[in-house]
């Protein structure tokens, strides 16, 4: 794993990944990183340092809401969940992303 660094994220996809991860229910920050890592089979890794700025930017925009709760190992943790605004944003970004990937694939196939 250490010798095979995860590919860099496409710009803007971090929000999409976080939104997608949270669409199944509230999670705390560490769980978000872990869920993404596992779901991508270690293919995507989010820098711990860039997670919180991103989460907070999304809080500012009102896509997420946060509240304090208790984690699975009984520690106090901050849980993030999607707001209605966030759900709409997820739909929007998913659509845009799909179109983008299809377009890139088209180009790559034809060139």
């Amino acid at each position, binding site marked *: 794993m250490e010798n095979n660094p995860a590919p860099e994220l496409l710009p803007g996809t971090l929000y999409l990944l976080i939104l997608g991860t949270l669409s199944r229910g509230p999670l705390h920050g560490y769980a978000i990183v872990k869920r993404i890592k596992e779901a991508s089979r270690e293919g995507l890794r989010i820098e711990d340092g860039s997670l919180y700025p991103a989460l907070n930017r999304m809080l500012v925009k009102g896509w997420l809401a946060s509240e304090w709760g208790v984690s699975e190992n009984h520690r106090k943790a*901050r849980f993030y969940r999607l707001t209605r605004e966030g759900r709409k944003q997820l739909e929007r970004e998913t659509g845009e992303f799909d179109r983008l990937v299809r377009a890139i694939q088209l180009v790559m196939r034809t060139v």
Partner: protein
Amino acid sequence: MAFWKELANRIGYLLGRSRFDRELQEEVLFHIQARADELEEAGVSAADALRQARREFGSTLRAREETRAAWQIRWLEDLAADLAYALRALRRNPALALAAVGSLALGIGANATVFSVAREALFSQPSCRDCQRLVQVSAGGNSWFSMPQYRFLEAAHVFDGLAGINIGMVVNWRDGNRTYRLAGTHVTDNFFAVTGIPVAMGRPMQRGDTNAAVITHGFWTRRLNSDANVLGRQLALDGQPYTVVGVLPRDHRMLAGFGFTPDLYLTKDPGEAMLYARLPQGVTRAAAYARLQTICREMDRVFPDANRPWTREVSLASVGGMERLQQGGQMAMPVTAFFAMLVIVTAIVVLIACANVSSLLLARAFARSREFAIRMSLGGSRNRLIRQLLAESLLLALLGIGAGLALDLWLSGLLSGLRIPTPLPIELLIRPDFALLAYAAAITLLVTLATGLAPALKGTRAGIAGALKQDARLAPSGRTLRNSLVAGQLAVSMVLLCAALLFWRNLSNAASFNAGFDTAHTVVSTFQTVRGSYTPRDFAALVDAATERLRALPGVEAVSPAGAVPLNPFLAFSRNGGKLRPDAGSRTVRVQYDSNAVGIDYFRVMAIPILRGRAFQESDRLGAPDAVILNETLARRLFGDANPVGRVLRFPDNHDARIVGVARNSKYVTLGEGNSMALYSPFAQGKSSAFAHFFVRTGGAPDAIARKVDETLGTLDSAAAVETHPMREIFAGALLPSRVGAAILGAMALFALLLASVGLYGVLLYSIQQRMREIGIRVALGATPGDVLTMVAGQSLRLLLPGLGIGLALAVVAVRPLAMFLVPEVRPADPINFVAVAAVLALVAGLATVAPAARALRVDPSVSLRHE
């Protein structure tokens, strides 16, 4: 929408910043702990797990910093930092801060209050329903109509209702065993229905109401102690019971405007009335006017008046704004002039204040140009420096606006509801005008930022090399700007000082002024009976009895009734005019004179000498031939140098009177009048049937006798209202305009002078500091202290002389219109005024030069040359 939500989120963050930081810290720790827990489960030792988790996370500080950045509003936090720095800078220089903030506060606060008062007094919208359709009717150049004329007009049905009102009627109110004079307003019973004046409690008057009263909020709270059961309460007014049917709201504004506030409205035949009409729906003012013209032609037939046809000068004036002001006529003139003067003076002071603030900021910015140069050379960006300077201006402006707002609120509270005891009392409801304040605040912000920007740009433009060079610091253009600001301030101070000096001289002149009669030993008692309760003959007997009883009081030397009180603008002599015929011949002389009906001992009481002939006597009674006494001016005008005593005078109404004497000239209506013409007639031959003023001359103190006079007159007719004051007090009323003018202008002028001297002092001191090196070189080259002094004084003079010159030129023009407020002995163009003011200004300028000169003399070349 999203933007506002975001902004709200960010502001929420700003408010709970410390909690946010704590929670973020906790969250990051949790993240690392969770990773460590996981590693530990995989078999790593606890200590290693924690270390590895920390390493994987990277810099927690950077993460926290970036997270915080997600929330921050960058410019707002920068601004806060700039303001905090500016506050420290201002605290280092409290004199400057105080001068600037004080100037701005006075500018905003005083100006806003003056405008609020003026607007309320002159332009406030009266309380009525649908005021646009309400008009005041006048015809034949007159807005007063008799009741038959009113009824005629009403019957013509030109309007959707026509109501009459007579303001300023004195009403006697018997409460317990005392009688008070109230300012009443007589209205026709449909007055409230036509005007739609709202009431706060009870109901308005209705058609068919008799003996109904609607009282004002002020009367209710002041005189009836806010009696909750006031509705239905009986008031004994002019000897008749009236029922209170309604109470007006606190913000009731009379249709007549000018803040007039009576105590109550009564349904009572007004005798003569001003008419208010409601235009019918769908009828324009022009259409109503045309129909009114037709009715006025009818009026000419029914109520013919050869001198004044009704069709001439017909008008329908609206009940607010400019038209009401014009309708106010004679009375509106001095009031408007007074406010205009006040507004101009405050505006001038504000101008000086603004000039001072910008001058202070300019001087400061130039003094700090080295600081800027150093900061720029250390890598500070020019934009950052400019922003810093703007922040200082902004802070000054905000503090000034805050203080100005506080001043306005305080002054408004102080002046609002103040009852000025004119016969129809004036009570202005002054509310801070927030639109105006917002406007003033915006202007202040703009001006302060603009004045702050100029030095900021200039101070930082020189660049590092230029600014560090000592002598290049004071850019010549900056010096010119500041110098002209100081000269301008001196000029404006000169104008204000000239005006203030005129008022002050007027005051001292008027106070020591010989009015032509004695005021020190006299009391005046106004005796007002209920109208219609006496025939003229009965009333004359009552006055005789009163005179006898008063004369019997211990200490009383002489007593006389009179119809008017001299030098009292509200109880004054009546002004008559017309063609008089000396000796009842064909020769006519057109004159304007003041007249008064006086008793036998009037001239003794007032100590006015009779120069020729005699005073009135017992035989000048009703039924005897009419007698008159002229004053010197009128006698000379009518008869030249010949002796008028014994000759006959024919009046315009063709009645004749024999001249029995000539009295020494005195003042009649205002202290400012010249030698006016005046005529006295015997009180006993007058037609007065309701009121008289009793003039009582006493050997002792006037205050002691006043109560006894009150009691004595009170026993004669318990329904009559009696008010007794020492003559001195009434006289003081005549000085009021002068006092107010002198006080306001004096304060403003002193303030302006103070500001100008601060400005001059500041500019000189700064310039000495700039020239420290130059002075050092001169002293080293052998300049004596005298040379240095000459140099500083020369600089001071170069500022003072243009200021004085411009000020003089302005003052000569500006004080000319003040003549209308002044006694004739004080001439606005008197050169002594200008010389005195110039001397004062020069003296103050000299004082402001002392400290900078002393500073220059202390310059030690060995120190100042090593200064670098």
